[in-house]
């Protein structure tokens, strides 16, 4: 049996016991050396990090080598309610394609997971690839109450990660703040028929009339998709889980909270190993928290985690059982001219994603996206400004808490284009080869299929040209935090507050 990871090893400290740690789940506001924001009672994490990522693709062949800006993006579909009255539970909290791109999963604040399946291509309408339609919907997490710590545990799905396909069924991990669950999504198209002692409708037969034995037979039936919980990985996190990532060894995964990273075996729920712990002995001395973590796509012993101080640490699990000491630290020296009260907040990394090739990683901070070469620690190889025009607005963004928004980022299938979200339902793409970038809007206007999306421009200052939008008229309540890119094709999924937009390139 492939139970070869040393899960029987007695030395590794179990993270199960510190679950009783008396510390609150929110680090104190001093952590970021910023004053607590008004009206929030000192809670310094406004929004939990989350991510869409396509980190573990088995193949990296990409349709359309150009991608990004050179292609024209068309509206394809929009999912979700039309009215502006948004129910809290319907707010999308994560979006994730599976490894083939055939399935697209979303999680929401109501603890639900909705899976869309791409329809088979329609030969007649060759201009459009298959649409995504609802395949399965299930309640992944329920609200809970931790009686030991008097804490409410939200049902909100923080992250979804698909497992590499192992048989005809599909598997995914979903997590809220505390508990990770493994779900199986399987199809059934046969059901058994025939009883001995009753009719198919449940009426009982007279037992004396039973003269021969009948063995039930399976008959075809309408396709039924079932989602069943297979494993529940609980009680290992004192703080809020911000990331889960499946290892390329196919049998382990990591889960990261604000201060610790745990390593799990996918088949073992009652034991996990703490591999990173940055909790200081005295919580007063807390200066940084873990914001995201991810395994390398093909090197099974390597993972990275990002911090609220804008650094990324790369750890090698071969070197030692405990990875508190990193093997690489990626950090860009601060530009003294840009130093301000908000410097530390906006340098906090909200998402980290390896490229499919495993050579690069991308990080998202409040104002920019950075691409790092794993072989160069002292600065990123590329930096893209997402919405530099907000730099002058940081004060009001701090007032309205937007500065704590956790934007995620994603790679296209060939690693040539990256995408991330912004405000006003805008999202941005950066072509790494041509260095061109584009701003698009997810909007219900012009949402006829095959309508080409018009590029948007934000006017930073001075006179506003035609077709430009002034910074002051941006709607900061409309934000795109979660996006996902199909692993092989130019199809993207963009989550606005409670709608999921699917765009594709014009064929």
């Amino acid at each position, binding site marked *: 049996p492939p139970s*070869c990871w040393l899960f029987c090893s007695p030395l590794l400290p179990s993270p199960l016991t510190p679950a009783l740690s008396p510390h609150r789940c929110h680090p104190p506001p001093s952590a970021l050396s910023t004053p607590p924001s008004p009206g929030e009672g000192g809670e310094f994490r406004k929004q939990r990090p989350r991510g869409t990522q396509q980190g573990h693709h088995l193949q990296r062949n990409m349709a359309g080598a150009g991608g990004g800006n050179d292609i024209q993006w068309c509206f394809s579909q929009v999912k979700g309610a039309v009215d502006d009255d948004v129910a809290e539970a319907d707010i999308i909290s994560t979006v994730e394609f599976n490894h083939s791109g055939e399935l697209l999963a979303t999680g929401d604040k109501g603890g639900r997971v909705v899976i869309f399946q791409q329809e088979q291509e329609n030969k007649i309408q060759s201009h459009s690839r298959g649409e995504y339609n609802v395949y399965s919907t299930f309640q992944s997490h329920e609200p809970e109450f931790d009686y030991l710590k008097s804490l409410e545990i939200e049902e909100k799905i923080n992250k979804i990660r698909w497992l590499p396909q192992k048989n005809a069924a599909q598997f995914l991990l979903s997590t809220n703040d505390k508990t990770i669950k493994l779900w199986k999504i399987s199809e059934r198209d046969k059901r058994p028929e025939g009883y*001995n002692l009753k009719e198919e409708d449940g009426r009982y037969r007279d037992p004396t009339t039973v003269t021969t*034995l009948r*063995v039930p037979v399976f008959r075809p039936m309408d396709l039924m998709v*079932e989602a069943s919980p297979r494993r529940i990985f609980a009680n290992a996190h004192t703080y809020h889980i911000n990331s889960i990532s499946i290892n390329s060894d196919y049998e382990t995964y990591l889960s990261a909270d604000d201060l610790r990273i745990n390593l799990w075996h996918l088949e073992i729920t009652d034991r996990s190993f703490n591999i990173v712990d940055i909790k200081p002995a005295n919580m007063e001395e807390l200066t940084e928290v873990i914001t995201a973590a991810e395994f390398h796509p093909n090197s099974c012993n390597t993972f990275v985690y990002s911090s609220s101080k804008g650094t990324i640490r790369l750890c090698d699990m071969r070197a030692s059982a405990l990875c508190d000491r990193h093997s690489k630290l990626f950090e860009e020296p601060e530009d003294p001219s840009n130093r301000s009260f908000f410097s530390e907040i906006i340098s906090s990394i909200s998402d980290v994603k390896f490229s499919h090739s495993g050579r690069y990683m991308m990080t998202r901070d409040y104002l920019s996206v950075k691409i790092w070469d794993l072989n160069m620690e002292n600065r990123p190889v590329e930096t893209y400004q997402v919405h530099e025009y907000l730099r002058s607005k940081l004060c009001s963004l701090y007032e309205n808490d937007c500065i704590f928004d956790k934007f995620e980022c994603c790679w296209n299938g060939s690693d040539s284009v990256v995408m991330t979200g912004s405000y006003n339902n805008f999202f941005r793409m950066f072509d790494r080869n041509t260095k061109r970038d584009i701003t698009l809007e997810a909007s219900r206007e012009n949402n006829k299929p095959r309508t080409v999306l018009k590029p948007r421009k934000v006017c930073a200052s001075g006179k506003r040209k035609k077709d430009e939008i002034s910074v002051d008229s941006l709607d900061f309540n409309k934000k795109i935090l979660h996006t996902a890119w199909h692993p092989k094709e130019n199809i993207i999924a963009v989550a606005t507050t409670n709608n999921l937009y699917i765009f594709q390139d014009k064929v």
Partner: protein
Amino acid sequence: MAGAAGPGTGPGAAGGDGDDSLYPIAVLIDELRNEDVQLRLNSIKKLSTIALALGVERTRTELLPFLTDTIYDEDEVLLALAEQLGNFTGLVGGPDFAHCLLPPLESLATVEETVVRDKAVESLRQISQEHTSVALEAHFVPLVKRLASGDWFTSRTSACGLFSVCYPRASSAVKAEIRQHFRSLCSDDTPMVRRAAASKLGEFAKVLELDSVKSEIVPLFTNLASDEQDSVRLLAVEACVSIAQLLSQDDLEALVMPTLRQAAEDKSWRVRYMVADKFSELQKAVGPKITLNDLIPAFQNLLKDCEAEVRAAAAHKVKELCENLPTEGRETIIMNQILPFIKELVSDTNQHVKSALASVIMGLSTILGKENTIEHLLPLFLAQLKDECPEVRLNIISNLDCVNEVIGIRQLSQSLLPAIVELAEDAKWRVRLAIIEYMPLLAGQLGVEFFDEKLNSLCMAWLVDHVYAIREAATNNLMKLVQKFGTEWAQNTIVPKVLVMANDPNYLHRMTTLFCINALSEACGQEITTKQMLPIVLKMAGDQVANVRFNVAKSLQKIGPILDTDALQEEVKPVLQKLGQDEDMDVKYFAQEAISAVAQRLTKLDFPVKDNEEPSAPGADKNHFLRPRGPGEDTGKFVPLMSRHTESERLGWFPRRQ
């Protein structure tokens, strides 16, 4: 297999008009698709009964196709099904039809749950033995090939476990194909499959011709041992053990050792850990010569590895390694090549490493003999007895018997005492608990004088520990000590101290007296129990705390069998009667329990022949005891409260004169 189901094996067995015997089978079959998992599971577990009733023909044509499609079920049902099918050959018509069982097992071998797949593979291996050679090539080998080239890695991992059972019986052409399939699985894209192949490599090597082992298995082994994923490499270490056993010393040196040396120095600590963990097996497999030349230096490196996990795994193997060395020259090797490294480990920075060493180090004394032990090992033991980590000290103390045999415990006793005292007072109750467990052992080795002088007070102090588990363990400890040192010792040293606690203001301590009496009465015998303990117990029946009172009842029940009839009749009975009317319902309950138990005993004493009387139900519903008493019942004559205990009522408590 299905002996219980009777002889109805023919195809016509299910005929019969309105046959009554059909009904239970019909229920079983219907429950195969019941909504309740437990019922489905029950039915699956009686699958042989169903098959027997259906007969071999219908089992093959109807039951097996149905089972092949039931792979959507719960894991536990699938697991039971996989297990059942392994024993099904007889039910489908014998070896000629064994291949009919392959389709359901094939689909079970592709499910995602490892336990189910493993069970399916186990059953397939079982069934392969029942195939004729012809059927094996016609049905079984194609199945293995199908699994080995399946789309999903679950089927390919399952295939890995099937090669070794079909290879020996296959023709040479098929053998070549099987080897080819195994080769390709060893370089599969997914690490899951490579791991499965690596873990079956040794097993497969054993059934191969020696030439093939050298020409094919060794290269596969070398590749797996240098796989990019350390989770694969570490499994190659296990395969190394099996392969090494097949090769001559020269081949071993040339073909396997380079890889093993590399594994012992692997960049990943998990691979080195595996080498350390499998060290004894490796040592046996490669033989004494290579052990001396290669393994000992490798072991030295593992003992000073930079990763504590590896050092701890190696430290665990120290004793076994030394034991397995050839007796000739063993002492020199240990003294010169192992001991210096052990000395380092005694002051290791990691407590787990020290504690691993402490758990085996005492074993070296028997190997090295008295003089070496006193000169070289004793300082290490003493250092470890003073270690800051309680686990290290505990491990030394728990293995004292090894040293005792060689040099006698006196050498250690001066250092032992402070170590024991410190552990006895450790802030962690689990540490205190652990040391208590070793007390009887220590007492036996140190002797009664030493014990009385130094340790007795500790044992008594534990009785008033603030943790219940410690008080409980201390109680049991006293019993074991009495068994060791005898009743006279008990009467002089233990019993008076225990009985004094009956007057303690803390009711928990008063209860401890009762628990001690429960534990000690048997070891102390009738006289001490009746004369010294019983009066105290009876006195405590008037305690103001109900918990104490009902424990008095429990104690009386417990010590009843040791007391003689007079004491029971004259002293115990009235007290229990009184407690039976206590205002607290728990006290009443346990008093009644005790009353019926003691009544039983009196009955048996009077009428030994009535041995098979139905005993009173000890777990009877508590509410039976809450029945209000009617007037007139309290007339001095005992009237049992439970009407259902008629036997006790009739025979129980009425004075019976011989």
